[in-house]
């Protein structure tokens, strides 16, 4: 992965679930990101895309869920989840324009 990368290539989509909604109270926002991106790239992408300051990034690699088609068992693709903590006071309007 090239070091200079467009922020929208890193950030795939926001994860909007009950859990992620609770986390926004702690200035944490959850994204699905390109599995090849590292924390530094995610930080840079979020800062550019939403014009906020990022305090911390935590990532985890998620296993794709198994799916069954009759007898054949397949797997959804693996993906990388990033929990981005912003500097207190900054917010992201996650629902805007989506």
């Amino acid at each position, binding site marked *: 992965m090239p070091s200079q990368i467009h922020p929208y290539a890193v950030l795939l989509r926001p*994860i*909007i*679930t*009950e859990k*992620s*909604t609770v986390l926004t109270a702690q200035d944490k926002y959850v994204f699905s990101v390109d599995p090849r991106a590292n924390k530094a790239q995610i930080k840079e992408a979020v800062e550019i895309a939403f014009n906020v300051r990022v305090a911390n990034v935590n990532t985890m690699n998620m296993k794709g869920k198994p799916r069954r088609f009759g007898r054949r068992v397949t797997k959804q693709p693996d993906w990388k989840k990033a929990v981005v903590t912003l500097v207190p006071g900054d917010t992201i309007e996650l*629902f805007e324009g989506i």
Partner: protein
Amino acid sequence: MKVTRERLPESRVLLDIEVDPERLEKSLDAAYKRVASKAQVPGFRPGKAPRRVVERMVGRESLIREALDQLVPDVYNEALEQEDVHAVDQPELEIVELDPPHFKATVPVLPTVELNNYRDIRVEREAVEVTEEMVNEQIEMLRQRYATQVPVERPVGWGDIVIADVSASVDDEPFVEDNDAEFTLREGETLFIEGLAEAFYGMGAGEEKEVDLDLPEDFQVERLQGKTAHFKLTVKDVKEEQLPELDDDLAQEIDAEQFPTFQALQERVENDLRNSLEQQADSKLQQDALDQMVEQASLEYPRVYVEREIDSLIRENLGNDQQQYQDYLARIGQSEAEYRESLAENAESRVKRSLVLSELAEVENIEVTDEEVEEQLDKLVEPAGEEAPRLREMFATEDGMATIRRNLLSEKTLARVREIATLDEPAAQNAGDGQQAGAAGSDQTPEKEDAE
């Protein structure tokens, strides 16, 4: 909330209601809570999704619609109160705009009744005249009722009563056996089958006779149709109907205490006739006067009054049974709408009359006191004799009293209608008062003093 009202014809009011955005926001919150518990949003358990998420899922518009289900009735009722509108039925609602909500409600309101110059109405009472012919007719009817049957020693004639044994057979098979049959022979009237009456004519008591008569093609017993029947007739008695003499005896037979002489009877008949004619004249006068008042009054009433009156007409005619109603419609071959339409005119005139009467009762200050109700109640149960106290208790419910009160009120009002229509003073003299009454219209207080 912004409300403007506009008066429409047929006694309706148009309310144009605009809801404030803050008010909408509050009810959107409530609507969200109702929707959220049902909405399935991926990533959230039911009822746990935040409002923004739900709003995006279902769309703001449908959330507003959900909110309006509650908001509209609330706001509508407030508007009624604020504008002091007395609705008599459900409104028709039309939503003009959703965000912020703006809707129009067309609601039927209490009718307006202006009697105008009702005091000028004069109706000539029909003169009542009892002629000698009318009295005689009544007496003749009495006479026939008190006719006596006297046995006579002569052949049977028309109008006589015959007591006879009759038996008949076809091909030696008997099919009629009637002993001591009693019947009246009348000229031109068929007795059982054609020719039988004629066969009796001229027979004397104790005489026997055998005749052959053809049974008709449409005889009630199928296998005997068109055959020839052999009749055996035995006359046992011949009686004659004798009309009583028009004398004191007849009067005494009818009621010795009340009518010692024929003249008393005659007077009574004449009086009864006069009374009933007087009553007819009274009710005609009252009807005509009321009709004129209705014609003169300016009435405005909602369509729903007529519809309700049609409902009650149908109930009066056919009862409450839905099945019976449908059967009746099928029989006369009309759809429900057609049938209702055919009743509309009648219903409308009933509505008008009742509106005029209740307005008149108010303007003329006609009231029924509690004592009058009690009196009427006593009168009602009086014929029951010993049972009266028990019966009285049955009637003395709130509903029963209210019905009696209503009836008394309408009686009194109708009496006033007659009074007004037959006032001696010339109409012109009253015109000033009447004008004022018309102008006062909705506000009756000053008019009442004039009416005294």
